[in-house]
């Protein structure tokens, strides 16, 4: 059996839980819907994200199927139940592609362009109009004295590399972020100062973060530890296995990849990772008798984070964002049936 390729469209409330699927052998979470056969819907998709959800659904190549996490009635282990549902649904749709999930959005071009303009491509002049349905990017000044095109993109809410539900309006020149604004109130806290986080969630954060840094195989290990920590309260091998994972992570060059990325108050992303890892180790060792422990990472609001990553390359910005295990504030509360 080859694993079924899955793209997760998760609301902020289920996004961490969905990462646990990385532990499953028959499922592989993909960074883009184009690589997926099954779209997994998890958690609350707010009404404001409905169109985005429908578009991600349509972006999956046929044959495709949809599985909804919250509809699955599970016994002990919801992750296993979801995984077997995914495998079953994928098998069925591969066997009969005509059952592939049909498009949800209307098949309409973003702008009417056919036959418009002197060449029928919808454009006018050199840069004007909407050739092939979209406008062209326009110039803006930049810090190095050149004024080149600025790409304005709205990233999220279902982006593999960012936490579910996070929406960011980004202006890029080249690969550098000129401005970024998170689509929630700027003062909304992404990390509160005294929050308590269960160790399973921390491990799920680690699993996703390792995936983003290109260590998918390690992400599987972290997700498996997360599942074990959620299942049993006293799993004696857990602390030992986590220590072993951490030891192996030392050889991956993560430290040099994360050092001096996203500096703030003398702490870089590697320091934040270390704090997370220490917190996990402390919880698992039982040295920290509370089921949850304080974060180690500093509190930060959306506006502060945006300020921090302005001027970084997109890669370093993603690395920095992932370095915080952020709580994405709900955009709206209206849930939408999927």
């Amino acid at each position, binding site marked *: 059996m*080859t694993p079924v390729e899955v793209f997760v469209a998760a609301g902020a409330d289920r996004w961490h839980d969905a990462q646990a699927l990385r532990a499953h052998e028959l499922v592989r979470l993909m960074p883009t819907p184009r690589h997926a056969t099954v779209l997994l819907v998890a958690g609350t998709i707010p009404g404001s994200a409905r169109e985005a959800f429908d578009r991600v659904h349509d972006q999956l190549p046929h044959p495709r199927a949809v599985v909804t996490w919250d509809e699955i009635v599970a016994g002990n282990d919801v992750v296993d139940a979801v995984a077997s549902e995914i495998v079953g649904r994928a098998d069925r749709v591969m066997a009969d592609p005509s059952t592939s999930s049909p498009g949800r959005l209307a098949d309409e071009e973003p702008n009417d362009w056919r036959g418009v303009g002197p060449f029928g491509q919808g454009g006018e002049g050199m840069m004007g109009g909407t050739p092939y349905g979209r406008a062209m990017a326009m110039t803006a000044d930049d810090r190095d004295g050149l004024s080149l095109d600025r790409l304005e993109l709205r990233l999220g809410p279902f982006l593999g590399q960012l936490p579910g539900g996070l929406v960011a309006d980004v202006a890029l020149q080249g*690969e550098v972020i000129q401005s970024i604004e998170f689509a929630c109130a700027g003062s909304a806290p992404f990390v509160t100062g005294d929050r308590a986080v269960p160790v399973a969630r921390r491990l799920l954060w680690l699993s996703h973060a390792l995936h983003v840094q*290109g260590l998918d195989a390690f992400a599987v290990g972290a997700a498996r530890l997360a599942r074990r920590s959620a299942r049993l309260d006293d799993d004696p091998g857990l602390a030992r296995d986590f220590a072993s994972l951490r030891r192996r992570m030392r050889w991956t*060059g993560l430290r040099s*990849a994360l050092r001096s990325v996203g500096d703030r108050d003398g702490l870089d992303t590697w320091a934040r990772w270390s704090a997370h890892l220490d917190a996990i180790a402390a919880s698992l060792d039982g040295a920290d008798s509370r089921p949850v422990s304080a974060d180690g990472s500093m509190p930060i609001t959306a506006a502060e984070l945006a300020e921090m990553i302005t001027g970084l390359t997109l890669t370093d910005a993603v*690395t920095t964002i992932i370095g915080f295990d952020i709580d994405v504030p709900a955009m709206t509360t209206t849930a939408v049936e999927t």
Partner: protein
Amino acid sequence: MNEVEQLSAPLAIVVVAAVLVVGVYVSSVVDVVAFRSVAGQRLRPGSAALFPARVAHRLSRQQSVRTERPDMILRVLAPAALLGLAAAAVTVIPLSPGIVVADVGTGIVLFGAAEALAIVAIFFHGWSPNSPFALIAGYRFVAVALSYELLSMFVLIGAAIPAESLSIGAIVESQAGLWNVIRQPLGLPLFLIVSLGVTFSGPLDLLDSNDLAGGGSVEDSGMQRLAWQTARHAMRIAFAACAAAVFLGGWHGPVLPGGLWMALKTFAVIALLGFLDVFVARISAERFVRVAWGVLLPLAFLNLLIAGVGAL
């Protein structure tokens, strides 16, 4: 020097096709084995051996999604050219004593040209879908590629010094006594870095990377994705075979026949690259560029000096 007989064009095509088909399959299996063993997942030999075939079967039946106004010519050309260049690179590498598909006198220059053209093909892959993430990934890759390009030229030139020839066949002959991996100890590590760059894997996984939602491959599905992965593995074969020939003595070795030695050494390099891919975290393009020019390039100079002094 052995007299090498030139293979006729049809025979050359058959030989290269065989090398690439077997090589790509083996390289894909190595990826599965590397991933599963590092992830601590069960490893069933039968399942791993059939894995690439199953994936290929599934992807070939999947829709190839078109993006808005892609550059379709370049979109098709990118994987096709990358595979073609991998094939070209394989032709100049001696496979066994007296058998080289094309014994070109300027072998390492041709190999370098194929490597440089591969940058173009990979850039096309990022450019053609007209998608922001793919575009950024493509440009980022070029920064990395221009930096490793110099390294690869230096280490191959270093290997050409004792051979007094630019032909890879002659470089293998020159290692009859002592392999280049010992004579020029910095050569192989630098060449492996280049190989990771060309196959955008491991620390240099800056093209199809997760931080850009799949980067250059973000819009690829179905056949597009299959073709791109095939071409990537073919490139890995070409570089592994080149590393085996230029630094590990090619077909030199005791007891076993030369061709088998070559295959074993190539496989060893493929396995090493596969494990590095799974085991090493990505570093940022800017950081690699700085390291490449500030540290690795001086090391390449040093390697050349070692090669030169050693040859005198």
